[in-house]
């Protein structure tokens, strides 16, 4: 590793991931920006992570500041502290890091000499709960915008600095940069009315999108930690964006359009990366890697190039079909322990609502393929608390799992299927942003009926294991996901009460949050559980991911009528706004949909076009579904 070169002309960035080193180090977004900034002569970047509670205690006791891991430089000696926000429950850790750095947590209390505090990443699409604590939020792909921000700051430094608000105004001229202090939030009758510029600045801040990933082959020098971290392997991003159109999925909505990396560049990044790092595993990452044009060839060539010894390839986001398992079999010659699929919902009707158009045949074919080729465990991810969900839909989860075990019994004595159920959190810039999240009690009840059903027939469900996400944490994720600026006071209150590392079950405390809400005169009923009307103001209306609000609303209506929508990569445009608004297009090597599965493409379903009516009801209800078709 080269030592960061701090010199007077360089804008010093401290890139922070507000969770532990083990969780934060592999974050690709942070590593990409780290490298891009350090390649610039006018910038230098280091990294830091949230100190665990024991270290935070030592730092406070010894009077030591939060520091960078690269050169142990004090955080407040940097020009910029830029936080990656990948999950809502880390928000209190942002305040903890600022406080440990010796920087006032509220923007209004910072002096002209304090570093600039930025946030980016997916949660930055609704930065309002953190609006009072950040100087700016950056929307979308960071590759280009970090350079533009650097130039603004370099010029500012060269001029000898000045009043903070002037810097804010200059930053606001950079596309993709939202400066909350330049916007005024109005409320009426305890409800948000709108967020509008209070001084001369844009009414709507648009996200940034890099047009072609081929221009950004980063990270070129992935960091290799000496201690074990999560996702401890080489990661190569094969495409960004996804147009499957799963309605619950914020990532799929805000990262449009699809931009594939050229296959030749993928191969170079894999080969160079393996040689450089010494890893024996590479993950081809994206939101749905089996959809990458020519995935089979890329995988085959990676496996064949064993210059670095025995390399295994992993696809972290498997599509649910036999084709995908075939690829997995190709690459995972050894270590066939578990495969994970995400059908997301337990009934076809429900999957039409969420637009995850996996037929049960696809799942059973995938599972059949997995067990017949030596895998022993299958893990299935589901959401519960989805719009229009009935108990029958919820129980359908276990029915699917039970049938997967049956499929497995043809190949194994004791096949195991783990069902992992998460409570659904509606996210900004998705068709479900109008949906009132299921209450904590309701989610608990749904987990309860699943547990009861397993207990009712332990023999019938042998081999099925159930895991679930804590509904209390889901409630707070919902609060932060769609919260407005008033929620900032709640975040601060929880942090002041000692609530850090809230995404860790040993530290999460619902009581801290409910007490804070009460002190601020807010309720989960109003902020989280309530359905929103078509014309209701959202806390993120002044920000844009390119998606037209009327497109999202129409998609929401379609959802309620259980009407599916095909992938626009291979079909005519629905004018969601993401391409047309920014004058960009899908970048895909192949104009034909991938072979095999039906998931969302529609094209390989019998009659094409609309999802066939015959599939809207489960055929042979109660009868075993034939296996191996689809």
């Amino acid at each position, binding site marked *: 590793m080269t030592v960061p070169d701090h010199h007077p002309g360089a804008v010093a960035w401290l890139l922070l991931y507000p969770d532990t080193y083990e969780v934060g180090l592999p974050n690709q977004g942070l590593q990409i920006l780290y490298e891009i900034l350090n390649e610039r002569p006018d910038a230098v970047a280091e990294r830091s992570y949230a100190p665990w509670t024991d270290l935070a205690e030592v730092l406070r006791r010894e009077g030591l500041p939060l520091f960078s891991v690269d050169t142990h430089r004090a955080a407040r000696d940097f020009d910029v502290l830029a936080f990656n926000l990948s999950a809502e429950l880390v928000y209190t850790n942002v305040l903890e890091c600022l406080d440990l750095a010796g920087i006032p947590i509220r923007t209004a209390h910072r002096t002209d000499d304090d570093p600039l505090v930025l946030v980016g990443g997916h949660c930055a699409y609704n930065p309002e709960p953190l609006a009072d604590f950040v100087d700016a939020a950056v929307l979308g792909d960071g590759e280009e915008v970090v350079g533009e921000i650097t130039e603004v700051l370099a010029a500012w430094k060269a001029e000898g600095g000045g009043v903070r608000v002037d810097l804010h105004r200059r930053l606001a001229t950079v596309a993709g940069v939202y400066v909350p202090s330049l916007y005024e939030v109005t409320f009426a009758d305890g409800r948000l009315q709108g967020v509008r510029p209070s001084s001369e600045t844009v009414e709507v801040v648009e996200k940034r999108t890099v047009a072609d990933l081929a221009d950004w082959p980063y990270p070129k020098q992935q960091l290799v930690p000496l*201690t*074990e971290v999560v996702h401890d392997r080489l990661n190569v991003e094969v495409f960004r964006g996804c147009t499957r159109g799963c309605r619950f999925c914020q990532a799929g909505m805000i990262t449009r359009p699809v931009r594939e990396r050229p296959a030749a560049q993928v191969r170079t990044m894999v080969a160079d990366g393996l040689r450089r790092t010494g*890893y*024996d595993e590479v993950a081809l990452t994206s939101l749905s890697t089996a959809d990458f044009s020519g995935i089979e060839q890329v995988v085959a060539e990676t496996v064949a190039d064993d210059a*670095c*010894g025995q390399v295994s390839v992993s696809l972290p986001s498997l599509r649910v079909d036999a084709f995908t398992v075939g690829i997995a079999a190709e690459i995972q010659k050894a270590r066939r322990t578990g495969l994970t699929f995400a059908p997301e919902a337990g009934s076809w009707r429900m999957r039409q609502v969420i637009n995850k158009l996996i037929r049960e045949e696809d799942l059973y074919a995938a599972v059949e393929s997995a067990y017949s080729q030596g895998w022993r465990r299958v893990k299935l991810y589901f959401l519960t608390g989805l719009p229009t969900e009935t108990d029958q839909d919820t129980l359908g989860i276990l029915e699917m799992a039970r049938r997967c075990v049956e499929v497995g019994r043809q190949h194994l004595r004791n096949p195991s299927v783990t069902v992992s159920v998460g409570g659904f959190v509606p996210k900004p810039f998705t068709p479900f942003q109008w949906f009132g999240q299921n209450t904590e009690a309701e989610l608990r009840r749904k987990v309860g009926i699943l547990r009861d059903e397993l207990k009712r027939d332990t023999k019938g469900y042998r081999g099925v294991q159930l895991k679930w996400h804590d509904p209390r944490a889901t409630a707070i994720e919902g609060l932060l996901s769609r919260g407005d600026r008033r929620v900032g006071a709640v975040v601060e209150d929880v942090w002041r009460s000692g609530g850090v590392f809230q995404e860790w079950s040993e530290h999460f405390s619902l009581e801290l949050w409910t007490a804070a809400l009460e002190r601020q005169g807010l309720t989960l009923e109003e902020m989280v559980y309530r359905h929103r009307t078509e014309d209701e103001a959202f806390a993120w209306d002044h920000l844009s991911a390119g998606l037209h609000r009327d497109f999202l609303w129409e998609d929401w209506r379609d959802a309620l009528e259980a009407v599916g929508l095909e992938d626009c990569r291979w079909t005519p445009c629905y004018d969601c706004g993401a391409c047309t608004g920014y004058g960009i297009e899908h970048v895909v090597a192949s104009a034909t949909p991938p072979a095999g599965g039906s998931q969302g493409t529609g094209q390989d379903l019998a009659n094409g076009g609309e999802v066939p009516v015959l599939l809207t009801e489960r055929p042979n209800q109660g009868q075993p579904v034939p296996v191996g078709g689809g």
Partner: protein
Amino acid sequence: MMRIRIRFHKKGKVRFVSHRDVARIWERAFRRAGIAVAYSQGFSPRQKLSFGLALSTGHESEAEFLEVELVDDRYRDQKTWEADRGLSPAMEVVEALNAALPIGMDVVAVAPIEKGDSLQQAVVACTWSIDVDDISREEAEAWVADVLSRAEIVVERERKGKPVIEDLRPHVHALGVTGATETGVRLTADLGTQPRALRPTELLVAVDPPLVARSVCRMNQWTSQGTDREEPLTAPVAPAPLAKVPA
């Protein structure tokens, strides 16, 4: 196939990396260095690396050992090992590995070996350099004399959940104050490793007043005792580049 033994240092910040993570560093280092090593067969093939006695996390060392089987064409048998390519094969391996290892981990010697006892079984004692703060030389001398004068040093410790009584004294082969540091003294201790290795920090707290080590460094591992005692591999068999340990 060629079996080699490697002696390496672990110094500086890398001392905080655990034994298990050190093993992973080595796996990556061989791949980065482009040196082909033998893999285990079966369900989950791994490089066949064998380490000697584990080093406590936080301790430094100038005497860590590793054995590995090379399947690399350049180093596959005794003949290739004796080939003269300008740089000796041993030196090639040292340089390639040092370029691939993190700061603080440095190969200081490499030699082909016959397959024999595992290092853990072969080693009978280790020499430790132990820096202790806030103690005068006289106090340290008195503490050492106290330890050496005792017939037994009985401690109770937990083993597999059950208390066991153990006499540490037979494991203390030698102990002395061997120098001064800016903030205290340096002790040197030869501690036995069979059937179980006595850890320096265990000894420091076994006799009153308990001492706290500022830093501990393993200097040697010994396969025999006495005046002509031997190490598994003496540094340097091949002249190694100086350790790149930051101040």
